[in-house]
């Protein structure tokens, strides 16, 4: 995962509440392998008309913010489906930060796992930023993860982020590596748990079958 510290970049203002993951990537694109790059699917049906031509009035199509790496949205960004492809679409498009007053729980967690910062700001700051003249003039924002600040012109707004997520983003850490260092603890827990809750294992379930792909490292 690519570490995140500070970026200065243009933002796309999507002043809409409840942008769901079905909007971020419509379901019909999700059967494609990630290797095709999901950036073109981002907000597809809002961005393009039925002939596939970009809708000029949609903010992401504004040539003045081409190359934007930040999305500034309303309340409850990324609500709905757990599809991580929504984050793939953002990441592949080049988005590094989403700023909103609240996020869908699963979306925010998915975002961090892909190096995208979900920066949560207050409703008041959200309103201020969405109305900020500086943004209308399309000036870049500076997002500093260490200080947890968003700066645009003279306006400085703080954002909140789970401390674990912050650490992971700053270091580009992967959960799986962290967990593997707990292998012994997990094995001991599972052993005791089988005694405590013998009913937990599915009746009639097949015994664990070793995979053909070799051992975990």
């Amino acid at each position, binding site marked *: 995962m690519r570490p995140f510290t500070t970026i200065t970049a243009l933002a796309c203002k999507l*002043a*809409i*509440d*409840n942008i*769901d993951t*079905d*909007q971020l990537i*419509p*379901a019909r694109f*999700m*059967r494609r392998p*990630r290797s095709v790059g999901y950036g073109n699917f981002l907000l597809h049906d*809002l961005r393009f008309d*039925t002939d596939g031509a970009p809708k000029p009035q949609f903010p992401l199509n504004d040539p003045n913010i081409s190359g934007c790496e930040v999305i500034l949205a*309303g*309340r*409850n960004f990324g*609500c*709905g*489906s*757990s*599809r*991580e*492809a929504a*984050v793939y679409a953002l990441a592949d498009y080049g988005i590094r930060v989403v700023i909103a007053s*609240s996020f869908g*729980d*699963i979306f925010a*967690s*998915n975002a961090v*796992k*892909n190096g995208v910062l979900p920066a949560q700001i207050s409703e008041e700051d959200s309103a201020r930023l969405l109305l900020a003249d500086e943004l209308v003039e399309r000036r870049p924002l500076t997002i500093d993860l260490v200080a947890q600040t968003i700066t645009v012109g003279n306006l400085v707004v703080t954002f909140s982020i789970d*401390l*674990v997520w912050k650490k992971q983003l700053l270091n580009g850490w992967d*959960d*799986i590596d962290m*967990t*593997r260092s*707990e292998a012994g*603890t*997990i094995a001991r*827990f*599972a052993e005791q748990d089988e005694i405590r*809750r*013998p*009913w937990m*294992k*599915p*009746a*009639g*379930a*097949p015994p*664990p*079958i*070793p*995979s053909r*792909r*070799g*051992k*975990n490292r």
Partner: protein
Amino acid sequence: MTDTQPASIIDKLWDAHAITTREDGQTLLFIDRHLVHEGSFHAFDQLRNRAATIARPDLTFGIADHYVPTRPASSAANTEAAGMIEQLARNAREHGILSFGQFDQRQGIVHVAIPEQGLTLPGLSIVCGDSHTSTHGAFGAYAFGIGASEVAHVLMTQTLWQRRPRRMRIVVDGQLPAGTGAKDIALTIIARIGADGAQGYAIEYAGSAIIALSMEGRMTLCNLSIEAGGRLGLIAPDPTTFDYVRGLPFAPRGDDLDRAIADWRLLASDADAAFDREVALDASEIAPVVTWGTSPEQSAPIDGSVPDPTRMDDENKAKAAREAIGYMDLRPGQALSEIRIDRVFIGSCTNSRIEDLRAAAAILAGRRSRVPGLVSPGSLAVKHQAEQEGLDQIFRDAGLEWVASGCSMCVGMNGDTVPPGERCASTTNRNFRGRQGLGSRTHLMSPAMVAAAAVAGHLIDSRLLARE
């Protein structure tokens, strides 16, 4: 937490699965059941990239649902979808996972078929790469949806790092009016607290109206917890739960079951357990609810009307309402019962269980639908039962298509979609723009309300069509 402190069911389940907690406050949870479906392929790819194996294939189950064609014609038309189903079967074989494929008698929507198999039990932690995993909370399980990276993490470790959620209790007391049910409770709650009202919370549903719900109703309610922004929703297990689980294929039997039930009885929240937020609803005030907008929070009782954005205090809400009304092609102030529909869909993990089909059939019996529509049972088992009860014939006689089991026209991945511009009365869980297909317009409601809309050709209070 010590044993002497009163605890909620949420705390009890959390503590039972907590392996270790880091100094930063994240806890490693043990996962008792991991459910995978066709869409989990990204996670299997991650596994492959790391040359890793599955930690606990005995606790991992596969099922085909999102891409399963519901009609023979759509399978030939959609080779990509067939490829997704085959990909799941291949991944399951390669990793030694039991998977209920397209032609397995146990197939169905993961959140309908897995409980039927007795794989969903009280006291379990359950995850799936599907946000509606909260459905399993109906059994008193700690069940939540996860993303593809988390699916990969669970596959490799059978654990997940989580932060203890805040606890919310939603108490619904009193008696539901005849003709209303779990879907109406859920939509009423979402309208009250908002589509992000439960963000960061685990929800316990309690109160006499909740206890009175069947397991089917409880699953519908818990299913929609995610639509209120909740990480999960659950209901303390009780005799209704134990009766449902008894005798199911993978459920414990004999002495094991007795031991299990003794454990499960202890899960209920202690009388003075603390919650971070409490919401109370009077069941007797709940009416059949329909959505008019593009978020599940944009709903109203059927005797209401489309709101007027110019009369809304909150500028964001007014803006959202304006956009939704535009997309849905409605007028501010328009009576909801005037909204004409083009088609209906009965199915999805929210409302495709036998009780849902019975409720819809009760309205449709002896009547014709004025619009085309699909009825998709939630599992092959539900399909067989409905056919034994003659419900399929009622749907067919009404002019609706009785199709195979799958996610179908809820998310439109299998080719079942609502054409652009058409308006669908739907038992599903999401009315997002384009959810049921590009340019589709969705009104969410209960199965009885969808059936009534089919008969009338417009949205209507199903109680007007109910028979003695």
